[in-house]
């Protein structure tokens, strides 16, 4: 089977940190030839953890290694005329250029879309910024934390709490907002690439990571458009179980003797089967728990009854018994559980890559398998700083 879906597609990744490199990483996984262009001091992500022993090292950042595997790497000082010229030459032969200013803005170095497209009219130039190049916040600075909160996600993340003023909204762990910006960029870029194949036409694509995050909540925006109030964060004000969140009759978390299990026997038939998993408890026929509405109304008492039972079992045991009865339930896994999960192992989800400095590590692979193409997920480790300068830039390096 041929390697990848995008053979011969040439990408220059000028991004730093997460959103731009994430977009380029997706293209690399799909088989494009990605050259990562770093300033001489290296991508900012090289300073971001995790590191072995928590000791920062530019070639051992877990974040950098994950975001930049399967790319080649060169260093260019775009403020120097010679290096800017070298970049211009590379861009003349590229299909796609990706940036996520700041700190590196191609426009700021006289290498913006208008300038590059003269030599390469079919170029696709993808620019990712926190708020895009439009609107009152276009020059505002934002991080993952800021975007997660501004876009409405943090408000729903925690679930309703007893005292909203002492339990503020929280972001999700990791760098989700920046990954969403990167995924939006990869989606739009691949659509533009398809148009280029059909028509020869290039594009400049502007991505707002804030809008990408907001677009993850279009159901909530539609509720707002219909005049519905925002879901309350105050537990006392929650009346109905929201889709997505798990409250009361929709589902929730049960304590086990080794962690937690997440269950959601939300349909009546699922609830009946769940009761069998529990061995047919006597309280099941009580009118407080007999219907979904009643279960929602009496959910605190109900969860107490379920917890009294679950705490005597392990999370994997309950998940297995539940799934045998076709009840939606899963163990609440840690990353340690994940790395030894038999299902993920069977699907060969994790991929092993040997890096000359960081060593052998198992990286999460892709969520998709193609019947007619093999994805080059382990083509090469993330580049050392300037590793491919000689190969790509030749004697000028």
């Amino acid at each position: 089977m041929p390697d990848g879906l995008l053979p011969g597609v040439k990408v220059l990744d000028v991004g730093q940190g997460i959103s731009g490199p994430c977009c380029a990483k997706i293209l690399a996984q799909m088989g494009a030839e990605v050259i990562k262009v770093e300033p001489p001091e290296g991508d900012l992500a090289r300073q971001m953890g995790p590191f072995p022993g928590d000791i920062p090292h530019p070639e051992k950042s877990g974040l950098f290694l994950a975001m930049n595997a399967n790319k080649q790497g060169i260093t260019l000082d775009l403020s120097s005329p010679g290096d800017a010229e070298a970049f211009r030459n590379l861009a003349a032969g590229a299909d796609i250029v990706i940036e996520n200013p700041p700190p590196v803005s191609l426009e700021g170095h006289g290498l913006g879309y208008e300038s590059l497209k003269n030599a390469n009219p079919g170029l696709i130039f993808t620019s990712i910024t926190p708020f895009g190049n439009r609107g009152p916040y276009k020059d505002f600075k934002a991080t993952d934390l800021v975007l997660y909160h501004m876009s409405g996600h943090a408000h729903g993340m925690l679930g309703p709490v007893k005292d909203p003023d002492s339990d503020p909204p929280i972001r999700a762990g990791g760098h989700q907002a920046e990954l969403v910006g990167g995924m939006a960029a990869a989606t739009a870029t691949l659509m533009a690439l398809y148009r280029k194949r059909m028509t020869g036409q290039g594009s400049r694509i502007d991505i707002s990571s804030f809008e990408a995050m907001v677009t993850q909540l279009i159901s909530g925006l539609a509720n707002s458009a219909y005049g519905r109030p925002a879901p309350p964060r105050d537990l006392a004000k929650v009346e109905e179980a929201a889709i997505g969140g798990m409250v009361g009759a929709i589902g929730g978390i049960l304590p086990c003797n080794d962690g937690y299990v997440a269950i959601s026997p939300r349909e009546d038939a699922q609830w009946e089967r769940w009761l069998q998993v529990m061995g047919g408890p006597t309280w099941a026929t009580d009118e407080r728990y007999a219907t979904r509405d009643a279960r929602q109304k009496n959910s605190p008492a109900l969860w107490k009854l379920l917890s009294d039972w679950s705490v005597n079992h392990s999370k994997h045991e309950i998940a297995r018994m539940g799934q045998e009865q076709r009840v939606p339930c899963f163990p609440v896994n840690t990353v340690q559980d994940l790395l030894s999960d038999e299902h993920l192992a069977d699907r060969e989800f994790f991929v092993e890559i040997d890096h000359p400095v960081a060593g052998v590590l198992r990286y999460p692979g892709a969520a998709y398998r193609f019947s007619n193409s093999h994805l080059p997920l382990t083509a090469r480790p993330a580049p050392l700083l300037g590793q491919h300068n000689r190969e790509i830039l030749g004697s000028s390096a």
Partner: protein
Amino acid sequence: MNELPLHGIRVLDLSWIIAGPTATRFLASMGAEVIKIGSARRPDPSTRGPAFQAYNQSKLYASLNISTPEGLALVKSLIAVSDVMIENFAAGVIERLGLGYDEVRSARPDIIMLASSGTGHSGPHKDYVAYGSLLQHYTGWNSISGYPDREPVTGGLWADPWVGMELAMVTAAALNNRALTGQGQYVDFSMAEALSASIPEPILDYQMNSRVKAPMGNRDDWYAPHGVYHCVGADRWVAIAVTNDAEWVSLCQLIQRSDLAADPMYADAAGRHEHRDHLDAAITAWTIQHEDHEAMQLLQRAGVPSGPSQDILRVFNEPQLREAGYFTELQTSDGELRDLPGLPWRLEGGPGPYLTEAPVLGQHNAYVYQELLGLPETEVDRMIEDQIIY
């Protein structure tokens, strides 16, 4: 010449609820003709609320009972004239309906068939019954979110929208490959793996340091100050993230605490991280005197990354979205004009995204069955009568 990127592509959409419809919404808005197939026999659960109006913008909607032999034959006729087919039933369901990849491929050899399910279409747990909210727990995604030493968090609508966008990306990649090679694809997509793939840091941290990463609320491993700070009003907060020393000095000047900026104890991120509780209290003493949006304006003017923590209604009214043209006014099926969401990208110099109101079931039956498949009206009427087009 100047068309939307997916002009000329037809997508047959057998998906439902959130993830699949989200993917086809992106494809439709970017120029593909998306034909959503549904049946009154088993309606799309998201039909019940306003969410349907967002998830199904820009699509055509035909009714078809594919559990009947004639319905199955019709869907194969539609596959024959489509470029992409997408489904997100539980693993094995589409095969039991008689629409596995082999059947689909014999109707259209170069079809791109996307099959998305909770845990994917192979492996010992492929038949596990899944919801997105549960997968967020199974995949470790929720394990790094929340407050330390508390129960796992139960909120967050994340899995389905995230997968929806990724499915659109995968479709675009497969279309590129088909344009190059002429070949189609079957795509086995696992929602669970999409979530686990988005948390590489704790997965690598575990291998590097034999440590299971604990949730840390709004805090960060390296940066400080980093959190949300109480503003004027109940449950009002401004998020502030100081990512370098210059931002720290600007923040101290703004909150009139130059003494903190001058203190060598807080001069670098490590020092600020160690003393973050103390610094958080100093910042709160300033934020509590300001409205959240006002605090953002002052902080941003000083060059400090910041923004209010908002509920969805405040997001809906965000000046940034309003002025950037994110919403489009559309007439929904009840006849009212409403502002509905758009796309997070702009392709400059070309036409804007194709955004129309969501259809109702069967609205495009005449186009799909008479125009596209060329069935006589009398035949369509009979199939409506027989609850095949239903």
